[in-house]
């Protein structure tokens, strides 16, 4: 019970970031919050349920375009974000029912295709989305500094909501069912778990806040285009961050996104021309030496000491 409270206090401290008055830090803070939303969301389907979803970019892009288009129609910003999250969830529910009977690599590939299809649809549907030209969002009448604060706090609020959802999952029946499914799906259905339903629920949960984050991102950057919001990196990053922190744990994805962000920034600054290669090598190394993530490694040490309960 203690650790989630500590995490909430940490979120509260991060929320004070604007006091420092450093816009670069504020931008990093917003990025961290967005990464935390994506990683925690992926953790529910990928970490708890053990289904390697590559659909994050699909939910993110769908959310971004939904939000942008609705704002273009004159919807107020927060309402557009909510609608984007809900649409992503409905999309995940429909697609999940179709592809979640696939396992392992097959599911991974099917989920990867979702973003590709949406990318094509978005690019071709020029009348609605502006196609390859991208989409501009309405200007907000607000000072730059105030905007930076608004988007930072909104994104952080979304991260906290995602955290609360993860907490609810990990502590309850859903998390227990998903952990069973990850370890042995056949045995799960034999002990009375409706595996299909729980998998779809997990997939929907992993999409809701990602869609909203996509819309928030669109409002934040004012201009979106298909290759940007449907980028494969949007799918890969949360997976790496979650595995770095500890898949299937409550705090892992949050810790992982913070560390990943720091690594990304440091590498970007010092290896500008080869940053992708350096980042890749770092990721491979980390996953190789920390297969259970940071939280997993710490929990293991505790377990060895006899302090039972690997719940993190």
């Amino acid at each position, binding site marked *: 019970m203690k650790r989630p409270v500590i995490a909430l206090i940490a979120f509260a401290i991060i929320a004070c970031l604007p006091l420092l008055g450093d816009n670069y830090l504020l931008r990093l803070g917003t990025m961290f919050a967005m990464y935390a939303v994506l990683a925690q969301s992926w953790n529910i389907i990928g970490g708890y349920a053990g289904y390697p979803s590559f659909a994050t970019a699909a939910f993110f892009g769908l959310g971004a375009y939904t939000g942008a288009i609705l704002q273009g129609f004159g919807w107020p910003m927060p309402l557009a974000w909510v609608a984007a999250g809900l649409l992503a969830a409905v999309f995940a529910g429909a697609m999940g029912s179709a592809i979640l009977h696939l396992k392992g690599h097959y599911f991974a590939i099917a989920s990867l295709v979702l973003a590709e299809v949406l990318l094509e649809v978005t690019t071709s549907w020029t009348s609605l989305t502006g196609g390859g030209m991208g989409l501009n969002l309405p200007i907000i009448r607000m000072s730059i500094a105030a905007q930076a604060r608004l988007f930072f706090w909104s994104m952080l609020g979304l991260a906290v909501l995602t955290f609360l959802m993860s907490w609810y999952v990990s502590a309850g*029946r859903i998390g*227990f*069912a998903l*952990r*069973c499914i990850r*370890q*042995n799906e*056949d*045995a*799960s*259905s*034999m*002990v*009375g*778990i*409706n*595996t299909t339903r729980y998998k779809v629920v997990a997939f929907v949960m992993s999409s809701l806040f990602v869609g909203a984050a996509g819309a928030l991102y669109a409002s934040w950057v004012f201009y979106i285009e298909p290759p940007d919001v449907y980028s494969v990196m949007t799918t890969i990053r949360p997976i790496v961050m979650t595995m770095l922190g500890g898949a299937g744990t409550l705090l892992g994805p949050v810790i992982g996104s913070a560390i990943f962000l720091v690594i990304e920034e440091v590498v970007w600054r010092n290896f500008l021309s080869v940053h992708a290669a350096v980042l890749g090598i770092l990721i491979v190394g980390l996953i190789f030496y920390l297969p259970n993530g940071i939280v997993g490694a710490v929990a293991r040490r505790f377990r060895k000491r006899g302090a*039972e309960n690997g719940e993190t």
Partner: protein
Amino acid sequence: MSILELKGLTQRFGGLIAVNDVDLSVEAGEIVGLIGPNGAGKTTVVNLITGVFKPSSGTVTFKGRRLDGLKPYQISRMGVARTYQVVQPFPEMSVLENVMAPAIFAAGASSKAEAMRAADEAIDFLGLKDLRDTLASELTLAERKRLELAKSLAMKPEVLLLDEVNAGLNPAEIEIALEMIRAIAARGVTIILIEHLMKVVMSLCSRIVVLHHGAKIAEGKPDEITKNEKVIQAYLGNRYAKANAAEKPNV
């Protein structure tokens, strides 16, 4: 009224008929043995009863309700439990958590505390108390088999299908397993036992059904089955037949 009834149960996999027109009626409280050589279709019958496969034709009826066409999780919630030939624990969970899963999802425990109580009861019953907090992946095979039994018991089953629970155990472990199966039966659970070890079947079962090539070829009390010429020669082997004849020369 029989608690479980199979009528004309048939399962085809492409051109192969794995189970062919099997009729079987099991009374409440019985221990029925299901035997037959490898590939006779025993496990397929279990998979048909528990909803892993939907039968090509025929019906499965449990207490007057049709099971065929239902999903495994629905059937397990109705009170039909099984153990697997190859044990299927949740490896990263403790013994307690493993047994809590069916207590929550199949038996419908209303709270975590109630699930824990039900799980503890099943764990104690099978003598796993000392291993309660051990990870399932760290158990020996015999212990894992007992965990399987504990899991199925926590489902509060009325019918329990045991698929080779004794395979891979040594004689001493089998003795213990036998005691446990008897104890479970004494609680009023109807048991269908799939088994290769004749000793086990003979000592436990009130009735034996013999499958061969997917079809039922004999059914009766253990001593009737051992006397059945076809069964002796085809399924227990000639050597068993001779030994049997030497033991009881008047048969």
